[in-house]
C-alpha cells in the first residue's frame, strides 16, 4: 500500500511539471513548431515583398497548391498504415489522358467527371490489390504501376496534346466561389480536409489506421481486417487522384503525357512535413493542413522573389529529408529528458 502511494506521488511529480517543462512540451509539439515556422515565413516574405500579404494574392496562390494538398489527404491514410504510393502522379496522368481524350470526342462534363473518377478508382484498387496479394512492399508495386499508368498515357498520347474541352469545364480549376475571391478548388480542399479529418480522428476506421500503423500484426490479431483496410486506402487514393485530375485539367485545359510529373515527391513531402510518421501510426490531418499551407506559401513567396523552379525543387527535396530527420531528433531529445528526470526521481 505504501509503496503504491509513493509510486503515485512520483508519477504525479512527473506529470505536474513546472511551467518551463510544460512550455518545452508544447513547443516541441510538431503542429506548434509548424505554426511558428509558418508565421515566420509569412513575416519574412511580407517584409521582402509588398505583394505577399494581400488577400487577393494569398487566395490566388491557393490555385498553385490546392490540388497537391488534396492529394495529400488520402496519402495520410496510406502512410499511416506504413505503406507508400509513388504512383499517384501517374494515376493523375492516366485520368487526365482519359478525360482529355473523351473531351476531344465531345463528351459532356458529367461524363468526364465520371470517367476520371472511375479510372482513378480502378487504378487505385489495382495498386491495393497487388500490394496485398503479392505481400510485397508497397514501394515495389507502386514503382511498377507508376511506369504502367504513365506508360499508357505516354503510349496513347505520344508527343501529342489534348486541348479541346467543353466550354464551362474551366470552372473547377479556375473559377472563384460566386461573389467572393475564394477559389472553388480551395473550398473543395477545405471540405475534403474536414471529411478526412473526421474519418481519421472520429471514426473506428481512423482508429484502426493508427492501430495498423503502430503494429499491423497486433491489429490483425485483434480482429482488424488489415488487408481490406489497406486496399480501401489505395482505392480512396485512386478516387481522389481522379478528382485531382479533373481539377488539374480544368485549370490548365491541356493534357500532355508529362502532366503532374514529380508530384509524388511533393505530396509525400506535404504528408511527412505535416508530422505523419513515415513508418506509420502517428500524425494528424491538422498537421498536414499546416504542412500544405507552409509549402504552398513558401513556394509562392519564393516565386514572388523570382527564385527559379530549380532551386524550389532543391528546397522541397531538402524539406522532405529535414521533415523526417527533425522529429527523430525531437523524439530523441524528449526521451533523453524523460530518462534524466526518472533518474533524478530515484
Amino acid at each position, binding site marked *: 500500500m505504501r509503496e503504491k502511494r509513493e509510486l503515485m506521488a512520483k508519477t504525479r511529480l512527473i506529470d505536474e511539471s513546472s511551467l518551463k517543462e510544460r512550455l518545452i512540451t508544447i513547443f516541441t509539439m510538431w503542429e506548434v513548431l509548424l505554426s511558428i515556422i509558418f508565421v515566420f515565413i509569412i513575416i519574412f516574405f511580407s517584409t521582402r515583398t509588398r505583394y505577399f500579404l494581400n488577400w487577393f494574392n494569398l487566395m490566388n496562390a491557393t490555385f498553385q497548391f490546392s490540388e497537391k494538398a488534396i492529394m495529400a489527404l488520402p496519402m495520410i491514410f496510406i502512410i499511416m498504415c506504413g505503406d507508400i504510393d509513388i504512383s499517384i502522379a501517374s494515376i493523375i496522368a492516366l485520368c487526365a489522358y482519359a478525360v482529355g481524350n473523351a473531351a476531344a470526342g465531345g463528351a459532356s462534363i458529367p461524363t468526364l467527371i465520371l470517367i476520371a473518377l472511375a479510372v482513378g478508382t480502378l487504378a487505385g484498387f489495382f495498386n491495393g490489390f497487388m500490394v496485398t496479394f503479392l505481400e510485397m*512492399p508497397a514501394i515495389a508495386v507502386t514503382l511498377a504501376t507508376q511506369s504502367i499508368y504513365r506508360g499508357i498515357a505516354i503510349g496513347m498520347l505520344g508527343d501529342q496534346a489534348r486541348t479541346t474541352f467543353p466550354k464551362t469545364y474551366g470552372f473547377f480549376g479556375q473559377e472563384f466561389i460566386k461573389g467572393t475571391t475564394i477559389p472553388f478548388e480551395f473550398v473543395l480542399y477545405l471540405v475534403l480536409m474536414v471529411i478526412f479529418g473526421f474519418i481519421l480522428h472520429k471514426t473506428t476506421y481512423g482508429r484502426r489506421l493508427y492501430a495498423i500503423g503502430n503494429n499491423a500484426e497486433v491489429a490483425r490479431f485483434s480482429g482488424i481486417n488489415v488487408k481490406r483496410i489497406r486496399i480501401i486506402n489505395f482505392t480512396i487514393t485512386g478516387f481522389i487522384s481522379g478528382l485531382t485530375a479533373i481539377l488539374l485539367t480544368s485549370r490548365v485545359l491541356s493534357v500532355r503525357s508529362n502532366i503532374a510529373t514529380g508530384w509524388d515527391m511533393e505530396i509525400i513531402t506535404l504528408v511527412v512535413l505535416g508530422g505523419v510518421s*513515415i513508418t506509420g501510426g502517428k500524425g494528424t490531418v491538422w498537421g498536414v493542413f499546416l504542412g500544405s499551407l507552409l509549402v504552398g506559401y513558401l513556394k509562392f513567396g519564393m516565386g514572388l522573389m523570382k527564385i527559379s523552379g530549380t532551386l524550389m525543387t532543391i528546397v522541397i527535396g531538402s524539406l522532405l529529408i529535414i521533415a523526417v530527420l527533425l522529429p527523430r531528433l525531437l523524439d530523441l531529445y524528449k526521451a533523453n529528458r524523460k530518462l534524466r528526470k526518472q533518474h533524478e526521481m530515484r
Partner: protein
Amino acid sequence: MPSNTIKKILARREAALVILLVVLLIPITIRSPQFISARNISTILNDMAILAIVAIGEFFVILSNGIDLSVGSVVAFTGMACGLINEANQAFGAVPLLFVGMGIGLVMGLFNGVLVAYGKIPPIITTLGTVSIYRGLTFLLSGNQWVTAHELAPSYIAFPRVTFLGISLLLWIAFIVIAIFYYFSRFTRTGREIYAIGGNPTAAKFVGVNESRIRVVVFVISGTLSGLAGALWTARYASAVNEMATGFEMQAVAACVLGGVNFAGGAGAITGVVLGTLFLGVVTNALPVVYLSVFWQTFVQGLIILVALTLNTLSDRRKHTKLLAQRRAS
C-alpha cells in the same frame, strides 16, 4: 544444405531467364532476321553496358533491403559535371573524367548512405528527396545550358567506341565492373555481410555485422557506379543534357527484379542482374520490330517489373508450401 538449395534456386532463375530470352528471340528473329546479326547484338550490348553498371549498384542497395531512387539524378549530375569539365579544358581526357565521375558519385552516395544509416531515414524517403536535390543541382551547375557534341573533346566522345580485341571499351568497363562485383558479392566479407543484413538484420547484428557501415557501403557503391555511368553516358551520347537519365532508376530496378533479386532483401545474384539487364535490352530493342512505338517503352518496362514481382512472389510461396509439407512429413 541451405547453400545447396540457394544455389539451386539461383540456377533456376538464371536458367529461366536464358530460356525466356531464347523464346523471345525466336519470333523476333523470324520477323526480322537482322535482329541477331553481330552488329545488332553489339548495339544491344553497348546500349546495355551503362545500365548494367548502374543496375549492379542498385542491386547491392536492394540486397540490403533498401532502394536507391537517386541513381538517375546522380548519372545526370556527374555526366553534366564531366561534360562541363571537358568543355572547359579539352586536355582533361576520358580516363581522368571517369575517376572524377566516380569521385562525385561516391560523395553523393555517401550523403544518401549517411542519412539512411545515421539519420535513420528510410531509404525510399532519403532518395526520393535526393532525386530532386541532385537533379536540381544539375540544372544549377549547368545554368540550364546543354553541353553539345562540338563543345566536347573528340577523344572523349570517341572513348567508349574505341575497340580492344574487337570489343568496345564501354563493354570492357562493364565487364570489369561485373567481374569485380561478382567477386565482391560472393567472396569478400563485406559482400556476404550485405546479404546477411538484407536477409535478417537482427541476426546479422548479433553475429557482429556493423549495420550502419553496411548501409553506407551499399549507397557508396551505388553512387560510385552511377558516377562512372554518368561519365560514360556523356561520352557515349556525345552531349550532356539536364534531363538525361530521367527515370533510369526504373530500368535499374527492373533489371534487378527481373534478375530475381528479392525486394525484401537478402537474396539475389549479380549474374541474375546481368541477365535481367540483357533481357530488358532485348525487349527495348525489339519494340520497333513488333511495330510498337518507342512511346510504349515505359509501359512495357512497368509491366515487366510487375510480372517479375508476381513471379518472384508465386515461386516463393510454392517453395514455402513445399518446405511446410516436408516439415510435416518428417
